[in-house]
């Protein structure tokens, strides 16, 4: 980073941990032989018209309403959305973790194999071996009564045929890989003896135990301090480089996605509404919802006591599907046709997809409205 702040950081004298190779994130789709990625062609994960519904007391909840995307080997993708957007449900679907009360339609192909409809045994094989997940709260992911090392070896031995001492060694290797200080000692400790950042490292180690080709991080750093967040995200990206793992980050934090992801997908009300490479997304936002998200985030560059431009209203409840574009009731640029037909997600520009009848141009934002505080 440049500017006066950057100079002060340099004067601070700390050397950021050097990544394995100089990392530039532009134009790397399908290339980068040095990073150990397979050439493009066979997508690692191919989601096609995924729909998920739940029965609940209030009716049928349409959590995901037809999303399609692909993840290439070694790619870093972010799925951004607020509560109720369907991002977490999509992630669980990719893992095969949805409960039996969920009705899943559509297709999820991992290296060509269909995941939807697989039996439990096959799914168990799939989880951990092919795909692993890092959850938000490390306290919930780790067994408080088991030593952390044992939890790693447990994961190892479930999927790989290793003897106990071999598994132990591999576990220590993994702890080293996730930059855990004093790994041999930490192996024998319990979760409550570790800090939040260290616990999350253990969770990552467990996730990587069998070197899955895809790692899903569901708000993995949300519960961590900002300094730890930086450490963990750097770690994840470095591991990606080393192991060639693809990473899907689920988050509500656009800034985080911008910093760490190559491609970003924005979800609203169960659909993908915009998808682009990180640079393109922020350089030329098209979907008014994405722009609203960007505008509403406090930024350090802004002056204090400025009112943030924000739209009112709330996302629709997922039981009654509104006609047309789900965002139309709140959209400052909405027109008549927006409530009549759902705009399809299309690649309007190379590498930049959006689902909007009246996308934003590159000029000034639309009419925001007077009441910036929103009404209940």
């Amino acid at each position, binding site marked *: *980073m440049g500017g*006066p*702040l950057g100079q*002060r950081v340099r*004067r*601070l*004298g*700390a050397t*950021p*941990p050097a*990544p394995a190779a100089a*990392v*530039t*994130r*532009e134009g790397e789709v399908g290339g980068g032989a040095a990073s150990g990625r397979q050439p493009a062609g066979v997508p690692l994960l191919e989601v096609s018209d995924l729909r998920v519904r739940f029965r609940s007391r209030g009716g049928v909840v349409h959590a995901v309403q037809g999303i399609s995307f692909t993840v290439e080997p070694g790619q870093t993708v972010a799925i951004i959305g*607020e*509560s109720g957007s369907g991002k977490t449900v999509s992630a669980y679907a990719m893992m095969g973790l949805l409960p039996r009360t969920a009705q899943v339609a559509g297709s999820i192909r991992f290296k060509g194999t269909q995941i939807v409809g697989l039996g439990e045994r096959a799914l168990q094989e799939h989880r951990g071996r092919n795909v692993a997940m890092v959850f938000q709260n490390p306290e919930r992911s780790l067994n408080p009564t088991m030593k952390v090392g044992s939890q790693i070896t447990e994961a190892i031995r479930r999927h790989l045929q290793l003897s106990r001492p071999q598994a132990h060694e591999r576990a220590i290797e993994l702890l080293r890989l996730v930059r855990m200080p004093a790994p041999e000692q930490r192996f024998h400790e319990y979760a409550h003896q570790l*800090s*939040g950042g*260290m616990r999350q490292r253990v969770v990552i180690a467990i996730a990587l135990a069998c070197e899955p080709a895809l790692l899903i991080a569901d708000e993995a750093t949300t519960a961590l*301090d*900002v*300094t730890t*967040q*930086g*450490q963990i*995200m*750097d770690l994840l*990206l470095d591991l990606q480089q080393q192991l060639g793992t693809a990473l899907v980050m689920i988050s*509500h*934090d656009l*800034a*985080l996605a*911008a*910093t*760490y992801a190559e491609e970003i997908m924005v979800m609203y009300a169960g659909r993908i509404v915009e998808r682009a490479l*990180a*640079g393109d997304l*922020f350089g030329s936002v098209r979907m008014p919802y994405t722009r609203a*998200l*960007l505008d*509403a*985030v*406090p*930024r*350090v560059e*802004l002056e*204090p*006591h*400025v*009112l*943030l431009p*924000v*739209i009112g209203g*709330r996302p629709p409840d997922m039981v009654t599907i509104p006609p047309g574009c789900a965002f139309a009731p709140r959209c400052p640029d909405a027109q008549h046709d927006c409530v009549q037909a759902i705009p399809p997600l299309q690649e309007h520009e190379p590498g930049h997809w959006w689902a909007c009848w009246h996308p934003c141009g590159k000029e000034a934002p639309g009419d925001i409205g007077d009441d*910036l*505080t*929103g*009404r*209940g």
Partner: protein
Amino acid sequence: MTSETTSPAEADAAAAVKREGEVGGDALLDVRNLVQEFVLRDYGGARGGVLQAVSDVSFELRAGETLGIVGETGSGKSTLARSIIQSPPPKQGAVIFQGKNLVGLPRRAMKLARRNMQMVFQDPFTSLDPKWTVSRIVEEPLIAYRLGSRHERREQVSSLLDRVGIDPARYGVRHPRELSGGQAQRVAIARALVLEPKLVLCDEPVSSLDVLVQAQVLNLLEKLRREMGLSYLFIAHDLALVKQVSDRVAVMYLGKLCEIGPVRDIYRRPMHPYTLALLASIPSPVPASGKRGGTSVISGELPSPLDPPSGCRFRTRCPRAQERCAAEAPELRPLGADGHLVACHFPVTEASGPRREPAAATH
């Protein structure tokens, strides 16, 4: 506020406050040498270690200004807020609010003194009684202070709910669980404002809300601030957020104040290494030239609050630490712009030279 006869001690405190209010007006809140401790119990109830969550913190808050308090886990910022409102009261130190020291006040005087200080908590669903209706929740402080007739109270509740963006006719009879997170937090804000306080302590008021709702509520807080002339003590971990709302910012680490000063100064010319590290860790939504920003500049783990490092508490993770840092705890000293104070032996200024070899971080 009702006038009361002041004791000699209180008169002294008030006079001291008047003396110190040199820069731009009287201090609404004057916190001095605040210490808060928790005794940890071992199994069986035996006395374990003592956790000093807040260690000798002093600062001022002037009328009409917003002081942002920033810190990470273990910084003690939430404990600081609770100590200021005396719930529980601090072990040592003084909290002088509108000229009265709240520490040690008898209950009746405390109730009167605290009327102008209210608090908004992080999670609205635990800060609102789930069995009560919205109107009743907002009305409760008025009843407790016996203000107004029933009719007048209802009027005030209605108008206040309206002001925070909640339709009283529709939502007045609802219970908190029937509201969304943003709506519930508005109700909590309304309740905090119904007594028309001078100071509102906000402990992470928007952290549990979605991005768009968060912006709405922040705008609401700003609007109310302007209309009602409120002062805020705003606690958050999100640096960008704190900058958005504050006039001055204080940075805490492991129970101590590292740096405090006017907001623009802190963000443009931070001097404490911890502040710099925090600012450097912020991921930015507009990445410069596609390079990975927000890389971690800070290493190591947070030391145990039970047994903090000697001298400067940040030294185990600070790249500029020297021997002096282990021997001597740095005092908060003015440096740079007016009102900018730093507690560091080797702060980062324009004049400081290139990186020195960091001393081994032993403890």
